[in-house]
C-alpha cells in the first residue's frame, strides 16, 4: 500500500503545481490586458520563426504579441472562417489568392510597410497579389528531390528529373509528399504539363503516371516525417520542400537537393492582415519589422527557408548555406510555376489520390 501513498502524493503535488500555473497565467493575463491597446495576435506556421524575433519586437514597440500556430493553410482558413480574429497571418500564395478573392483580408499600409524595398524582386509583384497590395513576403522556396548521393548518381537524377522517381531499381526507396497538390505537380511536370492544368486528358495521364509509379516503386506517402527520415538516411529519394531540404542537408552530408529542370512549384508565404483584425496599425508595424535585416536573418537561420530579404539572402548564400543546394532557390526556369487555388480541381485530385493510395 506504500506505493499507492507515494503515488497519491505525487498526483496531488502535480495537481497543486497545475493550480499554481493557472494562477500565474491569470496574473499574466491581467498584466497583459493593461497594455491591451498595444497587442496583436499573430497566426503563423509551427516552427517558422527565429527564437528572439517576437521578444525583440515586443521590446522595441513596447507591445505584446500573442502567437498561435497552424499546420496547414486549410486549417488556418477554417479558423478564420469560423470568425476567429487575428492581426497577422502567414498563408501561402494560393491561399492569399483565395483570401483576396473572398474579400477576407485588407490592404497593407505602404506608408508604414516601407521595408518592402529590402525584398528581392523575385518574390515581389507575383501573380496572386500584383503590386503587393495585400501581402508582404515571409519565406519562399521550391519543391524538389532530396537524394542520397551514396545510392543515386548525380548525372542520372539531373537527366531524368522527376522520372527517376519511377525507376524500378529504387523500389521501396521513394518518399512522395502526401498532398494532392504536390503529388500531381510531380506527375504533371514529369509529363511536361502545367501544374495548374484543368485539361481532363492531362490529368488522366498524370493519374496513370502515378499508378505506374506505384506499380514500379511502391512509394511511401508521408508529410513531415520525411524530414527526420531523410536526415537518418531511411530512403534514397524524397520529394521535399526546399526549406526542409536545407535542414536535411545540414544534418546529413550524404544528401543533396535537386529541383528538376522539367519545372517545379515555386511557392511563397506572405504576411497579410485579415479584415477583422483588432489592431491593424500595430499589425502593419509588425510586418514592416519582420522585413528588417535582423529578424529576417534570425528566421532564415533558424528555419532554413530562403529569405526574401536581399541582404540576408546574399549573406546566407555566400556564408552559412554556401554549399547547401536547397537554400538557393532558382528563379530563372521558365517551366517553374506558382500554384493557383482551384476548388473543383482540388476535390477531383484529392479523390484520385485516394484511389492511387488505396
Amino acid at each position: 500500500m506504500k506505493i499507492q501513498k507515494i503515488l497519491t502524493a505525487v498526483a496531488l503535488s502535480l495537481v497543486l503545481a497545475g493550480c499554481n500555473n493557472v494562477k500565474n497565467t491569470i496574473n499574466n493575463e491581467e498584466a497583459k490586458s493593461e497594455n491591451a491597446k498595444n497587442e496583436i495576435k499573430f497566426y503563423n506556421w509551427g516552427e517558422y520563426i527565429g527564437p528572439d524575433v517576437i521578444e525583440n519586437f515586443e521590446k522595441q514597440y513596447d507591445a505584446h504579441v500573442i502567437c498561435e500556430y497552424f499546420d496547414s493553410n486549410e486549417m488556418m482558413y477554417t479558423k478564420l472562417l469560423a470568425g476567429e480574429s487575428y492581426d497577422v497571418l502567414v498563408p501561402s500564395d494560393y491561399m492569399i489568392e483565395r483570401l483576396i478573392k473572398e474579400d477576407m483580408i485588407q490592404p497593407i499600409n505602404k506608408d508604414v510597410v516601407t521595408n518592402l524595398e529590402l525584398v528581392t524582386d523575385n518574390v515581389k509583384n507575383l501573380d496572386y497579389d500584383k503590386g503587393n497590395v495585400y501581402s508582404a513576403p515571409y519565406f519562399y522556396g521550391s519543391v524538389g528531390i532530396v537524394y542520397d548521393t551514396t545510392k543515386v548518381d548525380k548525372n542520372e537524377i539531373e537527366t531524368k528529373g522527376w522520372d527517376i522517381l519511377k525507376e524500378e531499381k529504387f523500389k521501396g526507396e521513394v518518399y512522395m509528399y502526401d498532398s494532392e497538390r504536390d503529388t500531381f505537380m510531380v506527375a504533371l511536370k514529369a509529363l511536361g504539363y502545367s501544374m495548374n492544368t484543368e485539361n481532363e486528358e492531362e490529368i488522366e495521364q498524370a493519374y496513370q503516371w502515378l499508378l505506374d509509379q506505384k506499380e514500379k516503386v511502391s512509394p511511401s506517402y508521408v508529410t513531415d516525417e520525411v524530414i527526420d527520415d531523410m536526415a537518418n538516411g531511411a530512403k534514397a529519394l524524397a520529394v521535399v520542400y526546399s526549406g526542409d531540404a536545407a535542414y536535411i542537408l545540414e544534418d546529413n552530408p550524404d544528401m543533396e537537393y535537386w529541383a528538376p529542370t522539367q519545372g517545379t512549384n515555386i511557392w511563397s508565404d506572405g504576411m497579410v492582415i485579415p479584415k477583422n483584425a483588432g489592431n491593424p496599425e500595430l499589425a502593419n508595424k509588425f510586418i514592416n519589422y519582420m522585413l528588417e535585416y535582423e529578424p529576417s536573418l534570425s528566421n532564415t537561420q533558424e528555419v532554413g527557408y530562403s529569405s526574401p530579404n536581399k541582404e540576408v539572402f546574399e549573406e546566407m548564400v555566400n556564408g552559412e548555406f554556401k554549399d547547401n543546394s536547397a537554400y538557393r532557390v532558382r528563379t530563372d526556369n521558365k517551366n517553374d510555376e506558382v500554384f493557383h487555388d482551384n476548388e473543383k480541381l482540388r476535390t477531383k485530385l484529392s479523390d484520385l489520390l485516394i484511389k492511387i493510395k488505396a
Partner: protein
Amino acid sequence: MVYPYIVWAAVMIVIPMLLILLYAFTAKGNSVRAFVFTLDNFKKFFSDPVFLSVLERSLYIAVVTTVICVLLGYPIAYIIARSSNISSARLLLLITIPTWINTLVRTYAWRGILDKTGIINYGLSFFGIGPVKFLETNFAVVLGMVYNFLPFMIIQIYNTLNKLDENYLYAAADLGATKFQAFLKVTLPLSVPGIVSGITLVFLPAVSSFFIPKLLGGGQYVLIGNVIESQFLTAGNWNFGSALSLIMAVVIIISMAVTRHIDKKINPEGEYED
C-alpha cells in the same frame, strides 16, 4: 438537477451530430450559405468501388486488432486478477502508465523502433540478418493498434474477473469440476460482459483510427479514417466527409448490436452486466 447535463449533452453531442447530418445530406458550397439537399455524397461512396474496399480493409484491420487484443488481453487480465492485492495494483499500474503519454508520441516512437535504421534492425544486424522491412506493412499497423488499445481490453476484462465471486469456483470444485472445467463453465461465461465492453473500446477507435496507419503504414494504403481526415483537412469537402462519418456510424452501430446480441445469448439473465 439534471438540467445542466441536458444542456451539456445538447451542446456537446446532439448539435454536432445534427451538423454532421446536415452536411452529409447537402451539396458543397459554404461560400453561398444556402442549403441544397442532395444524396450525391452517398452516391459517390457507393458508386466507386475504391471507397468500399477502403471500408472493407478498415474493418478487416480493426477485427484482426480486436481479436489479438482479446487473445493477449484475457490471459494478462486473468493473471492480474488472480495475483495478490499488492502485485495486482502494481501490474495494473504498469499497464496504465504508457497511456499517460500521448498516443501520437508513442506511435511516433514505434517508427524509430521499426525503421530500417531502427533499434530492431540494428540488433538484427549483429546476427547478419536484415535489414528487415517492418515499417509500412500491415504488421506495423496492427502492431501499433494492438499496442495502443490493449490496455483498454485488459482493464475491462480485469474489472469483471475481479468482481467474480470466488464461491462460485468453490461450488464448482465441490461438484467435481476440474480447474479447467470450472474456468470454461464458470469464469469464462461470467467474464463475457468484460470482453464485450473491451471489444467495444478497442474496435471503435481501431476502425476509425487515422494517425496509426498514416505513421506506421507509410501512407501507402488508406483506411476510412484517413479518407475522412483528408476530406476535412485537405480536400475541403466537408459534405462528403460527413457522409463518410455517418456511414461509419451506421457500420459501428450494427457491429455493436451484433456483439450485444451474442452477449445476451451467452448471458441471458445478464446479471453481471453493469
